[in-house]
Every structure is written in structure tokens, then in C-alpha cells.
């Protein structure tokens, strides 16, 4: 009985026939099939479900009416975002200073012990002034803001607000012919761009996934947030009376984030109209019910999964980078240290885009991790022999001003921090996800070119108009 009967008709022929039927129906059978399924489901449901209509719409739908309305959706989003930043900046100031004081006091102690043990100067330099000091900086500057920002962000996530953001922005992504889910990968990017790029897997269409990968870096990751927060607080906040300082700083950061998002849209639009042309795929976006947040889970997820994880990675990167910077700053060729030589060489380019050679060098040396840009910058500024203790933001301000910083330097540093090359981890993730050197190179080039262009325009126009 188990003889295999040769089919009289092959699958291929049937496919051709099906194709003919499909085309004679103007390709509409697929849509018909879907709508027929719905009709059948509707009939069955109507026979089995009775729904007592309550007079009042549920709390969820009333909330959704407000949070996703055309009128209030965006303002509420902005308000929540700036509140989160404001809380982060206000809350982080004092613990930052305390941790800074403690860690730098310990540094003096370490130097003392090294001297007692008869360690040579270069060893003390590399280990304490190089490695330990950058570690101390990373911890003091990054830990408090992260420990506040991440729980707040996770709280929004847990409440069910993030899908509403996606809903609000979906239309704009459609207009850029990108996928609405891209906003979720951007949200991940706030935590870490490398994680954001891995999250792009949730986008099904390869074209839209590439757009999301290429633009993820325009969302400032939390390695860049401390830099943004520190510079915004001391410079932008510094122009006004101290009671408005944090408010102005949060506003500046919110504007920067908005700028990042605007550039994301612009670049997505440009990509989908040039090298990544194609149809926009549709998606079903379900708004899950608002949930009571689980405080324990929020704290665990944000502190263990995010804060500690990111901090650990930053420290692993910062220690060797600190040592290398110290060596560069203390090995002299002729009159100047190596770092001064490099900075002098970069000075014309740095000046043209509103920075200086040291800042540009710090961004370049910060390629392994954005967290260490400020520590590297300070170390190279301070390398000229006089060792200053930097244990408060005010002292940081003094140092920067003594190095010739103006408001324009601050603005351009902020802009360049938002718009420059991704860190190596992010590039590596992009390479793994796209599997192509070409797209990885573009992930590097697009933000870099935009960063140089924007900073150049801002710096040159400010100078032409005589504002500096």
C-alpha cells in the first residue's frame, strides 16, 4: 500500500494557476481573505459574548484619550521628559558632590601611601592619578544621575506609558517611511545605544530595521547624559540666577533630546528617499492596560540590570583610558607633553567647529566609551603640572573658564556630544546586527558628518554675528 504514486500535476503548475486566478481578481483575494476571517470571527463572537455597556468609559480609555490626544499628547510627553531630567539633575547634585569628596579624599590618602612605600613617581602617576582618578570621576559623575534616571524611566515603562509614546509618534515615522517601532529602539538607546541597536531586531522589515540602526546614535545614551548634564548645569544654568539653574539646565537637555529626535526623523526621511527606498510596512500597535508599577521589580531592573551593568562597563573602559591619558599627558617631547602636541595639531579643526584641540581629542580618545570624555578632558587640561582637586561642579566651571571656554564652546560641546560617532561597543553591535562593513561605516559616518556640519555652522555664524 505504501507505493508512492507519481503526482499527475506538480506543485509548480498549481502555483502558476493560482497566480493566474489571483491576477484576474486584481490581486484583491488576499485582502478579501483577511476581511472574511474578521467577518466570521465577528459572527461567532456575537453569538457567545454579551457585554453590559457601562455608562462610564473605563479609566484606561479616558487616560488614553488625554495622553494620546492630538492636542495634549506632545505637551504631556515633553513635560514628563523634562520632569524626569529635572528630578535627575536636582537629585544628583548633592550625592555627586559627596561621592566626589569621599573618593578624592581617598586619592590623597593613596598618594601618601604610595610615597611611604617608596613607589616611583611614574607608578603613582599611572595608577593613582591616571587610573584611580578616572574611575573616581566616572563613579562620582555617573552613578547618581543613573541611579535616579533609570528607576524613573523604568517607572514610565512599567506604568505602560512607553507604548503611548510610540502611538503618538507613529504617524511621524510613517511620514518618514520608517517603522513606528523605531521609537521603542530609541527608548532603549537612552539607556545604551548598543542595546538600542540590538533592540532593532523587533522591526521586521530589513529596510526599516537598517534605518533604525543607522539613526539610533542620535538618542543620547546614558554615557553621554552625565556630560550633557554637567556642562548644561554649569554653563547654561550659570547665566541665570542660581535658583533657576536646574530648571534652565533641564530645559536645555530636553531641547537637546528633541533636537536628537528631530534629526532622527530628518535622517530617516532622507535615508528612505535615497539609499533605502521602499514601502512602509503596517504594524498593529496594541496599547496595553495601565498597570500598577511593581516597585521592587523597578528597583531591581533599573539598578541591577541597567545602572550596575553600565557602570561596570564604564569602569572597565575608564581605567585603562585613564592610565593612557596620564602617560600621554606626562611624557614630554621637547617643551610640550604628547597630549599637548596632539591637541595643538587638532586645534585648527577644533576651533573651526567651536571646540578646541583638547575637547576634540577627548572625544576621539573617548571612542571606547563616551563616559570618559569629561575625565579625559579634565586630565589633559590639568596636566600642565598644577594638580587641582575637582570635587565640585563650581570648580569644574573655574577650570573650564580658565581654559578659555565661552558659552559658544559649551553649546558646541553639547551639540558635538549629541552628534558624533558612536562608541566602539555600539559600532560592534551595528556590525553584528547588519553583518556588513558598509552599514557599520555609515553608522559611524552619518552622525559624525552631521555633528561637524552643525557645530561648524553654529560656531561660524556666532562668530560672524559677533556674538562671542
Amino acid at each position, binding site marked *: 500500500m505504501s507505493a508512492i504514486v507519481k503526482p499527475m*500535476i506538480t*506543485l509548480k503548475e498549481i502555483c502558476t494557476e493560482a497566480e493566474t486566478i*489571483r491576477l484576474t481578481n486584481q490581486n484583491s483575494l488576499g485582502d478579501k481573505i483577511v476581511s472574511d476571517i474578521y467577518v466570521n470571527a465577528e459572527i461567532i463572537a456575537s453569538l*457567545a459574548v454579551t457585554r453590559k455597556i457601562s455608562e462610564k468609559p473605563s479609566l484606561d480609555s479616558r487616560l488614553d484619550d488625554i495622553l494620546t490626544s492630538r492636542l495634549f499628547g506632545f505637551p504631556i510627553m515633553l513635560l514628563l521628559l523634562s520632569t524626569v531630567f529635572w528630578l535627575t539633575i536636582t537629585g544628583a547634585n548633592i550625592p555627586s558632590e559627596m561621592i566626589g569628596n569621599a573618593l578624592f579624599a581617598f586619592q590623597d590618602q593613596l598618594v601618601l601611601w604610595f610615597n611611604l612605600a617608596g613607589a616611583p613617581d611614574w607608578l603613582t602617576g599611572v595608577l593613582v592619578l591616571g587610573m584611580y582618578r578616572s574611575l573616581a570621576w566616572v563613579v562620582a559623575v555617573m552613578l547618581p544621575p543613573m541611579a535616579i534616571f533609570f528607576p524613573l524611566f523604568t517607572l514610565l515603562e512599567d506604568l505602560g506609558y512607553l507604548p503611548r509614546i510610540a502611538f503618538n509618534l507613529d504617524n511621524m515615522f510613517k511620514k518618514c517611511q520608517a517603522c513606528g517601532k523605531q521609537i521603542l529602539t530609541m527608548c532603549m538607546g537612552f539607556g545604551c545605544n548598543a542595546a538600542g541597536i540590538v533592540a532593532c531586531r523587533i522591526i521586521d522589515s530589513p529596510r526599516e530595521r537598517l534605518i533604525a540602526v543607522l539613526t539610533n546614535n542620535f538618542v543620547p545614551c546614558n554615557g553621554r547624559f552625565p556630560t550633557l548634564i554637567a556642562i548644561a548645569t554649569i554653563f547654561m544654568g550659570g547665566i541665570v540666577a542660581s535658583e533657576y539653574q536646574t530648571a534652565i539646565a533641564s530645559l536645555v537637555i530636553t531641547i537637546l533630546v528633541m533636537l536628537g529626535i528631530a534629526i532622527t526623523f530628518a535622517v530617516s526621511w532622507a535615508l528612505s528617499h535615497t539609499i533605502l527606498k521602499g514601502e512602509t510596512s503596517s504594524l498593529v500597535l496594541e496599547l496595553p492596560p495601565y498597570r500598577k508599577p511593581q516597585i521592587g521589580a523597578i528597583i531591581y531592573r533599573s539598578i541591577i540590570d541597567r545602572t550596575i551593568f553600565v557602570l561596570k562597563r564604564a569602569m572597565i573602559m575608564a581605567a585603562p583610558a585613564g592610565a593612557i591619558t596620564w602617560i600621554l599627558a606626562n611624557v614630554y617631547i621637547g617643551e610640550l607633553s604628547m597630549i599637548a602636541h596632539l591637541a595643538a595639531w587638532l586645534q585648527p579643526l577644533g576651533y573651526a567647529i567651536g571646540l578646541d584641540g583638547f575637547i576634540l581629542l577627548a572625544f576621539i580618545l573617548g571612542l571606547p566609551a563616551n563616559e570618559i570624555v569629561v575625565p579625559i578632558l579634565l586630565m589633559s587640561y590639568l596636566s600642565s603640572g598644577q594638580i587641582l582637586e575637582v570635587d565640585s561642579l563650581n570648580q569644574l566651571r573655574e577650570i573650564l573658564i580658565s581654559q578659555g571656554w565661552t558659552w559658544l564652546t559649551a553649546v558646541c560641546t553639547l551639540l558635538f556630544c549629541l552628534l558624533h560617532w558612536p562608541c566602539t561597543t555600539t559600532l560592534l553591535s551595528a556590525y553584528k546586527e547588519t553583518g556588513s562593513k558598509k552599514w557599520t561605516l555609515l553608522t559611524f559616518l552619518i552622525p559624525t558628518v552631521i555633528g561637524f556640519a552643525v557645530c561648524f555652522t553654529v560656531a561660524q555664524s556666532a562668530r560672524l554675528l559677533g556674538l562671542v
Partner: protein
Amino acid sequence: MDKLSIEEHRRMLREHFGITTTPGQFTVALAGNPNVGKSTVFNALTGLHQHTGNWPGKTVDNAQGSFTYLDSSFLMVDLPGTYSILAHTVEEQVARDFICFGKPDATLVVLDATCLERNLNLALQVMEITPKVIVCVNLMDEAVKKNITINITALQKELGVPVIPTAARNGIGLGDLRHALYEMSIGLALTNPRQIRYSSEVETAIQELAPKISRCIGHTLSPRWVALRLLDGDQAFIDSITHYLDLENTLQELAV
């Protein structure tokens, strides 16, 4: 000739879906829309006997868990949460290929009682592929809160497959669910799954194609359903079907 032997089935599962069953173990596929408590059902039934990985060659998560009921062992495969299995996304394709070619002994479709109408789409689509379907109406407690009453008897009569109401979070209905899976797997449950009635032009086209399809591929797959996929112009499905049928033929030739 239509049926694969048990050994061939195990080999198919291992080689194509990365699923290893113990001899005599039943496979159960778990399907459902996102956010219907599918994972809660999965965890409640399998407890800590779980194992996660990826579907072979896909970046889609695959969780498997096992449980024992009345001396029978079951391997439950948690399919990705999807709104349909018309295969517009990788997740949908993974879910559909497993239900269709993995030939599980039972497919459990979890529905959300608070929006049954939308959820029924998936159940109807699964019922087009296989008659071994059990429908689980979950979140019954939520439905009560929202003043929604569901007539389970009427639903079962309409669908023609067993319907089990549950509130998996509170552990309600899980015993019935296990029993239904057991009866379905050992072949005790008789089903008559309701078939979707399509508009006339679609039905005419099906009549045209279905007989030819059944002559070509036999009854391993529902000819009606294959016809629908071809009419939908689903290239991914044509690739899948060629791939899997080739494999079945080789397995059968080996067996002869």
C-alpha cells in the same frame, strides 16, 4: 501513507524545529495573541521544567517546557505571540510552520476573554490547518470585572473544538486544560472545527484549486488551506511547503 511514523515525527521535530522529545512524549503547541497571558498559562502548566533558545536560523525566542499528566509526558512549545498566522512577519511564519509542519499532537490557542472577537481570528486560522485544537479562553476574571459574559457552551458549539475557560493567574481552569490536552493527544477528543466561509469569488477559486492540490500533495495538509495560501500569493509559504514535503517524502522513502 499520509501519517508519519512516531520515529519520523521525532526526527522531523529535531531536525527542523530544534525540538527534542523523549520517546512517547506528546508535543503541544501554544499559540495566542500578545498580552493574553500566554506565558502565564505556559508557566502554570510547565512550572520550572523549562528550556529556552532560538528557533533554528531565526532570531525568534523559543521556549519549551514539559509536564506530566496521568502518566503521559507532554512537551509544550511556546510559539511567538502573534495576531495572525498569515505569515507577514518572521514570528508569524515560525508559529505557522510549527503548527502546520511540526504536526503537534495538540495546539492550544489562548484567547483574551475581554476582546474575544479580535482574538478569534487567530483561533479560526489555526482551525483551518489542524483539527487538533483546544481553545483556552483566558482572563475570565478580567472579563467579569468588565461586565463581559461569555457563553462557553455556545462558543464550543460554534467552534466545534473543546473550549476551556481559565483565569491562569489565579490557577483557575488549569486542571481542565491538562485533561483536555490529554484527551486530545491520545485521540479521545472528537472535533469538528468550524471552517471559515469566504466570499463567493474566494470560494470559487478554492473549488478550482483544491482538488488538484489534494492530488498533488495528498492529505498531509488541508488542500483548502493550501489553496488559500496560494491565492494570497504567499511566496514564503510556497518555499516552506516545498521544503517540508521534500523532507517527508525522503523520510517515507527511507521507511519503505
